């Protein structure tokens, strides 16, 4: 029934998914060029940006100095730090989410605090993180950054897990009750698999935030990494490299999100 109808529809060019994004990219590039020529003379044009940051892109793994390294090398430092903070966020956030979802008492007690802490900006957490780890000496900046990433990235995981646990259909719980599954078995055979799709949505949002926070954390602590590099180049008046950093941060964030949504989809169908 649908095939004769759909064949009558005008044919959509097959390269749509390629042509239109390229077109959008060119428009953005054109706007950038226009702005750099007119209202913001200090803003480097696309060509100038490329000329001045070519070294960092074409030799992405070079290490010429502490704050003068290839862009992928910087990215790697940032990713390692993010991975650590993110891991802490998941390890702490998931159990808290489960407790919130399972226990009304726990939820009543801690939900207000969570709602108050959740909107706090990473820029506000970082100084506190540094204060917390003052005694750690040289490690203080890394621990402070980790603390900030973990506490900011935790919330989506916490809240999504809690929602996931709360929305487990009563049927599944009835199955567990009829079979008299033990508490641990109920947790691992029923609650956890039923919550997984929600948890992964939380994990994906958390990763996005963790990557947002890393830049702020590095800028304030001056650690080598994409964010630290960006801040140093701003202070050195190398504006074109700021743009390089922004593009790198954006692309990495995009790739991370895509990877996570692939993993997420894998669990959605399960």
């Amino acid at each position: 029934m649908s095939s004769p109808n759909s064949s009558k529809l005008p044919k959509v060019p097959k390269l749509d998914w390629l042509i239109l994004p390229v077109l959008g990219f060119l428009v953005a590039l054109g706007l950038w060029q226009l702005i750099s020529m007119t209202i913001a003379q200090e803003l480097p044009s696309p060509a100038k940006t490329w000329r001045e940051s070519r070294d960092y892109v074409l030799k992405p793994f070079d290490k010429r100095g502490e704050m003068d390294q290839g862009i992928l090398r910087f990215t790697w430092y940032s990713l390692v730090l993010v991975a650590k903070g993110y891991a802490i966020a998941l390890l702490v956030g998931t159990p808290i989410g489960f407790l919130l979802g399972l226990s009304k008492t726990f939820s009543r007690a801690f939900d207000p605090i969570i709602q108050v802490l959740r909107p706090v900006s990473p820029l506000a957490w970082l100084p506190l993180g540094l204060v917390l780890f003052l005694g750690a000496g040289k490690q203080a900046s890394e621990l402070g950054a980790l603390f900030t990433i973990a506490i900011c990235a935790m919330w989506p995981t916490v809240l999504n897990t809690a929602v996931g646990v709360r929305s487990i259909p009563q049927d599944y719980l009835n199955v567990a009750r009829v079979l008299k599954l033990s508490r641990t078995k109920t947790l691992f055979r029923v609650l956890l698999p039923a919550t997984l799709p929600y948890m992964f949505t939380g994990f994906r949002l958390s990763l996005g935030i963790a990557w947002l926070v890393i830049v702020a954390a590095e800028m304030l602590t001056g650690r080598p990494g994409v964010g630290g590099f960006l801040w140093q180049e701003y202070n050195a008046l190398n504006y074109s490299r700021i743009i390089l950093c922004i593009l790198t941060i954006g692309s990495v964030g995009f790739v991370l999100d895509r990877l996570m949504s692939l993993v997420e989809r894998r669990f959605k169908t399960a």
Partner: protein
Amino acid sequence: MSPFLQLQNVSKRFGALEVLRDLNFSLARGEFVAIVGFSGSGKTTLISLMAGLLRPDHGSITLNDLPITEPGPDRGIVFQNYSLLPWLTVFENIFLAVDQCFPNWSLAKKTAHVEQYVALVNLSPACDKRPGELSGGMRQRVSVARALAMDPLLLLLDEPLGALDALTRATLQDEISRIWETQKKSVVLITNDPDEGIYLADRIIPLNPGPGATLGPSFAVDLPRPRERQSLNHDPRFKRLRRDVIGYLTSAQRQQRAEVHRTLVLPDIEPEDLSNPRPLLGGRRRPIRRREIKHENIAV
């Protein structure tokens, strides 16, 4: 000897709503009883009580003279909405139940047991599929197989075929009938279809419509087994039973209807003329209340 399953003066209310009132029921070992009622008359509440998923407010429920206080694998339940775990395959869903009921069996014995019951409901080819890949009828078979594989003393079927289309329904009724012939379990079937009850059960009991539902008189189904669907439709005993049960239920509902008293509150509001321009700052005028209207000019 006291009956196998017995409910005495059972009442259950949810908040202000009394669902079941002073309900008495008994089931002999190996008996197949169908409870028929309108939707919303408390059928699911009744079977949840038997399963132990709910506790009665008053009265007692005993199985083999032991009070039922919590759900357990001695009562296999088939829910209307299948209640399969969607992340497990057919095999794993049933295996979870078998593993839980017979922890001392060897892995090979458990596997063989699961496979035997998958075969019993004719699902062997779909053994490694997930519930999402199966049709409603197939899912319900898995659910039946899971309940039977637990080798329960009592099988509780809560409108197991309610969500299925008529043809699948008939096929599954035949299958339940066939399985019951071989296994001879005690069964309580909840249904909203008197024909289904008469076709499958030894006894059929109407549930008077709630709130405050009780069981009506029990109708013995004296039709010989195995029952043939085709010839059954012309059997005068079948026709008489069917007429009696349906007649009982509809008259019970009519009585129920006569007792309903409601105060209806009509909305005190008048249609608004949307063609009038709105005030400049967007403030919406209050809707006109009927009781505020003093004079009404109606142009005809």
